[in-house]
């Protein structure tokens, strides 16, 4: 039996990627291992083999930089392949491909939800192995977004990227290989690539292409951007003025222009969701602040939304296109009934369908609108999530929304949330109730509502607002039963990334309400692997979606990096609190994003996907912070620990993603594409 380590010379041949890509192959069966090794060598990769998972882990831990990709068997005597998958995803953020002679759907699903970026069946054919390098590239690109503004790296840098990250990053244009979920991401990336024509895009098809400085929209940068946009008013925000306000060196008007375009789309998306929410709030008979009402409406709307028809419409459209559809659907479906508010919300909902930007611009002025938007978006998100067993859809929604949401939510919430956090709470409650009725949908609503409510006050409002929502939603959610965390608190921007059907949403957190609104609850399916979903509103979630143990589905690692969060001290505190509460409430150890964010800033070793939504924290959109998704993780370990949060997030997201993929593969793909295309801010890594 071979136990060994033949090693891949580090760096050797990396320049000719994929030639020389360093693969670690793990399989207890010597025959398979030998065959695999030979096949990989034939593809000109550097191969290291071992027949024990523990040795593999040791090698990886000793030097994470030694390998680009891991291929592992599922059934191994010393450690379950899924477990290895999870660990590698969490600790090293490397793409992992599962291998097995067992091709049953549920096993494949498990691999994906645990974070595998691919799942191959034995006997493996060389054709399949020839393309595995794309997983590396993809991941690498995904993580690139998080880089600072002055990153002038070539996109083509060799890649240790993970292919399966649905980052909006540039993809190498690797062709889709198959219909597998992981492949969708590839497509997504490709699409993203196509759409991303602005200078921020990376074009890495040709490694030898002339280097062009690439602007990376880091959280900080984005925050400034959003601040500038809000200051000018979304309607009046022109790249030139924004550039002036931002006052960042080396940023060109073109950079800003393309970023603005994406931002607008994002807002539009958010508004679609918000409108849903608004509907709900309205239905609830919202009270004073628009925000609240909207939130409720959103919730209600959401619920209505979840109706299969509505959902299907969402799923059918995926994130990108359907935004309007969804919004529209929402509006129709919902009982957007709000008393005085309703009119506003209706308006806002209408707006939601359109660019969210407009909402944003006026947010202060138009609470209702903002609310509606965010709600709508939240709803949309939720809806999606629920639709698909909650998990995937949620993720998708979250993702899509996240992109657009962060800003939207933020603005919405901030504007809407006025010092009535408390009020909101109650309202949120109300809102939530209706949503609760709806089964999975409610989760989403809550989320949306939470998001919306969280935003209310400018700087903090969002946070707080969110809380109330969250809190309520949380409580409500359990009622629903299978919601996944999603419902729980979606604070302002919070985008519940993954819904775990079993988790009680952060709603449980609701108890906490009061305090800072929790940005959002990210429910990570326990299995989710590593993906960290970075939630736009400045929350960066790190999820390691990778081959999440839960399912091989998505394991994307979503990295939530809440740079913003960290920046807002208040936010953090509130969030932390919230998270504490939430986590307590939530059985599953959902972690308040806030917590994570707080911790996250310094951390995130595993950076899976760093989604930085640099919402504008400065804008007092605490929404971002508040919208920190609650991570629910199956991990029962310390809920509030960053690691735990990450893990849970990953798991949740992964699960969600996986679920989603499973249920709506096409949808997911679309969504991913959309997300990638649209969201420089939001990266969902799966």
């Amino acid at each position: 039996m071979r136990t060994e380590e033949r090693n891949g010379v580090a760096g050797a041949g990396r320049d000719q990627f994929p030639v020389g890509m360093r693969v670690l192959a793990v399989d207890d069966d010597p025959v398979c291992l030998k065959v695999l090794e030979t096949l990989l060598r034939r593809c000109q990769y550097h191969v290291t083999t071992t027949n024990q998972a523990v040795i593999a882990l040791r090698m990886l831990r000793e030097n994470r930089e030694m390998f680009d990709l891991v291929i592992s068997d599922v059934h191994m005597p010393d450690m379950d392949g899924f477990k290895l998958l999870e660990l590698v995803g969490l600790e090293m953020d490397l793409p992992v491909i599962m291998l097995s002679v067992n091709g049953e759907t549920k096993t494949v699903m498990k691999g994906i939800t645990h974070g595998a970026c691919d799942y191959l069946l034995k006997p493996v054919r060389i054709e399949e192995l020839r393309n595995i390098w794309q997983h590396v590239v993809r991941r690498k690109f995904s993580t690139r977004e998080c880089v600072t503004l002055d990153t002038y790296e070539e996109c083509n840098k060799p890649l240790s990227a993970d292919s399966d990250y649905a980052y909006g990053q540039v993809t190498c244009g690797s062709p889709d290989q198959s219909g597998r979920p992981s492949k969708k991401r590839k497509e997504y990336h490709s699409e993203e690539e196509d759409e991303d024509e602005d200078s921020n895009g990376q074009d890495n098809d040709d490694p030898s292409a002339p280097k062009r400085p690439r602007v990376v929209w880091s959280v900080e940068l984005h925050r400034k951007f959003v601040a500038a946009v809000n200051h000018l008013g979304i309607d009046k925000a022109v790249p030139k003025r924004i550039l002036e306000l931002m006052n960042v060196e080396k940023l060109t008007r073109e950079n800003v222009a393309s970023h603005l375009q994406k931002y607008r789309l994002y807002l539009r998306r958010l508004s679609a969701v918000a409108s849903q929410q608004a509907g709900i709030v309205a239905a609830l008979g919202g009270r004073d602040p628009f925000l609240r009402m909207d939130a409720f409406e959103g919730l209600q709307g959401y619920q209505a939304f979840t109706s299969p028809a509505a959902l299907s419409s969402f799923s059918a459209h995926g994130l990108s296109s359907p935004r309007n559809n969804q919004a529209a659907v929402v509006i129709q479906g919902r009982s957007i009934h709000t008393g005085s508010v309703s009119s506003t919300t209706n308006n806002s909902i209408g707006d939601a369908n359109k660019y969210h930007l407009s909402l944003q611009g006026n947010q202060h002025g138009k609470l209702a609108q903002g609310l509606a938007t965010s709600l709508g978006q939240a709803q949309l998100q939720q809806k999606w999530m629920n639709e698909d067993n909650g998990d995937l859809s949620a993720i998708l929604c979250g993702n899509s929304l996240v992109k657009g949401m962060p800003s939207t939510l933020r603005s919405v919430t901030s504007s809407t949330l006025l010092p009535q956090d408390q009020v909101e709470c109650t309202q949120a409650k109300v809102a939530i109730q209706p949503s609760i009725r709806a089964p999975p949908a409610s989760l989403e609503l809550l989320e949306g509502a939470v998001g919306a409510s969280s935003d209310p006050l400018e700087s903090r409002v969002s946070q707080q607002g969110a809380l109330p929502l969250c809190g309520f939603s949380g409580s409500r959610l359990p009622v629903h039963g299978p919601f996944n965390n999603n419902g729980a608190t979606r604070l302002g921007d919070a985008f519940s990334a993954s819904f775990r059907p079993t988790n009680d949403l952060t709603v449980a957190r609701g108890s906490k309400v009061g305090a800072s609104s929790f940005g959002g609850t990210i429910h990570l399916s326990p299995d989710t692997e590593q993906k960290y979903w970075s939630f736009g509103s400045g929350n960066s979630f790190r999820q390691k979606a990778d081959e999440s143990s839960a399912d091989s589905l998505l394991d994307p690692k979503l990295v939530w990096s809440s740079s913003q969060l960290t920046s807002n001290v208040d936010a953090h505190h509130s969030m932390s609190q919230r998270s504490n509460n939430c986590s307590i409430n939530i059985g599953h150890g959902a972690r308040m994003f806030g917590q994570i964010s707080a911790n996250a800033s310094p951390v995130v070793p595993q950076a899976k996907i760093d989604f930085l939504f640099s919402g504008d924290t400065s804008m007092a959109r605490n929404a971002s912070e508040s919208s920190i998704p609650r991570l629910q993780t199956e991990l029962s370990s310390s809920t509030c620990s960053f690691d735990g949060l990450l893990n849970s997030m990953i798991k949740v997201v992964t699960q969600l993603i996986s679920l989603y993929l499973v249920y709506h593969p096409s949808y997911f793909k679309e969504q991913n594409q959309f997300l990638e295309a649209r969201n420089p801010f939001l990266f969902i890594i799966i």
Partner: protein
Amino acid sequence: MAAAMQLNTLMSNMFATGLLDDQFQQLQMLQDPSAPDFVAEVVTLFCEDGERIIGELAKLLDKPAVDFDKVDAFVHQLKGSSASVGAQRVKNTCIQFREFCQGKSRDGCLKTLDAVRNDFYDLRSKFQTMLQLEQQVQASFYPKQ
């Protein structure tokens, strides 16, 4: 070249009777100057590993209280290696074997174990012949001085 012709006949026979499938051909195609003994190594590994697994299976099934999960795990492993090598018949027998495991039928397992053993030994002896013939062919082409 009698050896070459015999080898040819043997291989065709193995493919024709379903003992081997095209995965084995893939392995053959992988053999090249950079991996000159690839097929021989893989085949040898398979024979050794298969022998070991069958031994373990016999021991497990011999116990009064059979641990079907362990049995299943071994069968799964044998299935994996035979699939990787292209040992079609052994693989198919393993599939049947797993069903009996899942059904927790000891008798079914024992019977299938015999079938697996027979198929495996049959394949193994043919593999050994194949390797010998190949060596002869190589020797005749590249006579060592």
